[in-house]
């Protein structure tokens, strides 16, 4: 049973007791009133009746005296009439007295009154008062005594009534005090256990109502209010868990990385999120009411557009490439358009960087092809040139005339010229000079992976890295080695058309000469390389991608680059399982 319930029962019990006591008091007061009434009834009419009886007695005596003095017949008749009237009054007041006086129960006194009355009648009839004078005097004395008794009794009654009234007043005061204290106690109890917790609970409810769904009431008690608070907390919990509050949605929209613009049916901006303000450079106020066509300068903004390439016009005039999706607004009878635009600036930049890297690679391959070609030409041309050189010199030795010697000199000059042209061609076709710097292996690997990732070249390939954090830096031409890594990783991606896993690991190793170095291994889960192809992988112009994009020079160039750094490059492969390409490069100042 709960406290409030118990208390209510106690309160009811106390109220019942107080009620019963009050009832007793009322009964008592009623008794006092009755007695007071009785006292009043007796005192006034009883005493009046006795007084009238006494007055009537005295009048009758005077009437009898008058009758004795009257001798004339008419006067005698008048006195007799008066006497009858007074006797009638006497009886009348006697009747009244008997009706009202408690003292009428005094038989002796009653009989006296009766006897006096009868005596008055006899004597009135006889017309003589001689025999009744003594009786009458005794009667008046007994009347006086009766009146005295009545007065004394009235005094006693009055005193008793006064006491009772005083007690009733005192009890009433106590009752008032008790009831007052009870009222104060009840008020304090209600304030303490009902009103204040209810007030706090009400305030907590208003907070939750305003959207503070994580707010809970701290009202704790073991009564019904505690139950109510518990139920309210559970309700708030449910509300928080199951209902997506406005604030939550607002937070999501505010935190979105993409531009969100809501337009009305006329195509004017109605609301925007923080990303829109940040990316476009306008303030929120500047954006509101602006037509969508002024913000999206390229690409159609229409309901149903999904991941369409478009461009936003920023406040500073920049055109920001975006991926735009637009959907009609649904619900609550609103009409409009919800536009989400993904900022593609970084992606475009990365794509451009990858494209540039690819072009560099292609350029390197072209130069390498030219170098190979030039080297082939050089070998094939220089041998005949050497023969011509030797031949004309021999002819020169044998020449007898100046014309022949002149001819030999001219041929020799031409041989020298041809030789110079071929030297220049070879110089041109050689890779450019290296700019070596100290680079962390991790930087090389991550930079290359980023190029592939942001450039969108990885497709369904998952990349993992296992790079020893304590590796020494490498003394390399960063762009050339990244070119090599890019080439190797793209070969791996090409070997996994259906997706797969690309693992790049880097660890410390020793070069052949005992110099400290770093091995960077690129492993794929691709189709692998046939054993008969494996030996030819580094040969110039060997390619298995002839139908696609391969020149057959990527690995050849890569190997040349790695070897020009004093490093080595190896390929291990198992058909159907995958390929591992390992570059070993020297570390900075890593002399053993």
């Amino acid at each position: 049973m709960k406290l409030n319930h118990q208390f209510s029962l106690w309160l009811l019990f106390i109220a019942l007791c107080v009620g019963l006591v009050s009832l007793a008091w009322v009964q008592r007061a009623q008794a006092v009133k009755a007695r007071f009434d009785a006292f009043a009834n007796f005192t006034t009419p009883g005493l009046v009746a006795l007084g009238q009886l006494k007055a009537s007695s005295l009048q009758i005596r005077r009437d009898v005296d008058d009758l004795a003095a009257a001798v004339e017949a008419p006067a005698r008749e008048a006195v007799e009439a008066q006497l009858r009237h007074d006797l009638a009054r006497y009886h009348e007041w006697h009747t009244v007295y008997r009706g009202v006086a408690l003292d009428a129960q005094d038989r002796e006194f009653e009989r006296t009154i009766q006897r006096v009355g009868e005596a008055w009648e006899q004597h009135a009839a006889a017309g003589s008062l001689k025999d009744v004078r003594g009786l009458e005097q005794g009667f008046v004395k007994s009347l006086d005594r009766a009146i005295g008794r009545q007065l004394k009794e009235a005094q006693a009654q009055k005193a008793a009534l006064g006491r009772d009234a005083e007690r009733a007043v005192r009890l009433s005061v106590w009752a008032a005090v008790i009831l007052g204290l009870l009222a104060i106690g009840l008020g304090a109890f209600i304030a303490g256990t009902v009103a204040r917790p209810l007030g706090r609970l009400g305030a907590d409810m208003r907070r939750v109502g305003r959207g503070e769904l994580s707010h809970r009431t701290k009202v704790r008690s073991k009564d019904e209010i505690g139950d109510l608070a518990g139920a309210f907390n559970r309700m708030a919990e449910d509300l928080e868990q199951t209902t997506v509050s406005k604030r939550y949605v607002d937070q999501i929209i505010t935190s979105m990385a993409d531009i969100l613009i809501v337009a009305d049916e006329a195509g004017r901006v109605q609301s925007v999120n923080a990303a829109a303000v940040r990316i476009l450079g306008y303030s929120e106020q500047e954006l509101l009411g602006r037509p969508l066509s002024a913000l999206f300068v390229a690409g159609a903004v229409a309901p149903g557009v999904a991941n369409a390439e478009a461009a936003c016009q920023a406040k500073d005039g920049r055109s920001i490439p975006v991926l735009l999706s637009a959907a009609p607004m649904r619900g609550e009878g609103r009409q409009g358009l919800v536009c989400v635009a993904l900022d593609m600036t970084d992606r475009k930049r990365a794509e451009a960087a990858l494209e540039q890297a690819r072009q560099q690679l292609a350029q390197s391959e072209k130069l390498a092809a030219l170098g190979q070609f030039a080297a082939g030409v050089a070998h094939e041309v220089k041998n005949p040139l050497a023969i011509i050189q030797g031949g004309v010199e021999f002819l020169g030795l044998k020449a007898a005339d100046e014309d022949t010697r002149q001819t030999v000199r001219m041929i020799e000059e031409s041989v020298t010229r041809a030789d110079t042209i071929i030297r220049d061609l070879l110089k041109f076709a050689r890779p450019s000079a290296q700019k070596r710097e100290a680079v962390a292996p991790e930087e090389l690997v991550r930079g290359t992976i980023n190029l592939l990732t942001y450039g969108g070249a990885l497709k369904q390939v998952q990349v993992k890295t296992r790079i020893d954090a304590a590796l020494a830096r490498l003394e390399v031409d960063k762009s050339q080695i990244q070119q090599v890594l890019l080439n190797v990783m793209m070969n791996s991606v090409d070997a996994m058309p259906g997706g797969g896993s690309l693992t790049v690991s880097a660890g410390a190793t020793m070069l052949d000469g005992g110099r400290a170095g770093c091995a960077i291994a690129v492993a794929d889960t691709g189709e692998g390389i046939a054993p008969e192809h494996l030996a030819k992988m580094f040969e110039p112009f060997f390619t298995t991608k002839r139908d696609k994009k391969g020149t057959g020079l990527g690995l050849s160039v890569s190997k040349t680059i790695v070897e020009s750094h004093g490093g080595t490059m190896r390929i291990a492969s198992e058909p159907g399982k995958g390929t591992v390409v390992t570059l070993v490069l020297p570390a900075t100042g890593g002399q053993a």
Partner: protein
Amino acid sequence: MSLKTSVLIVDDETSFTFFVKKNLEASGRYDVAVCNEAAKAVERARALRPNLILLDVMMPGTPGEEIAVQLKQYPETKSTPIVFLTALVKAEETSTDPAHEIGGHKFVAKPVKMQELMKVIDEVVASPRK
């Protein structure tokens, strides 16, 4: 014992070896033997024991560098100086700096003027043996 410098020239180009032999011998200071087959170069060198071997780098069969390594293995040829002849295919061979060496040996780029060739031969032969 001849006062002339004996030279073995190993090169698959017969016309080239023909003119080198003619030119060197025309100077009167050299005895020149010719070998046009790389495979027989070591055998010829061991038999002839020349003062110097002119060795072509790019030949079908055995490359010049390998022949140089093999020559090191025989007592009769291990200290024979070698001058490489090359039609320049590698980066360092494009250099005209005569200080450049291949595997510790001087080299001469084709086409070569005979005066230059003779100068290199004389220098190498005159230099202290390693």
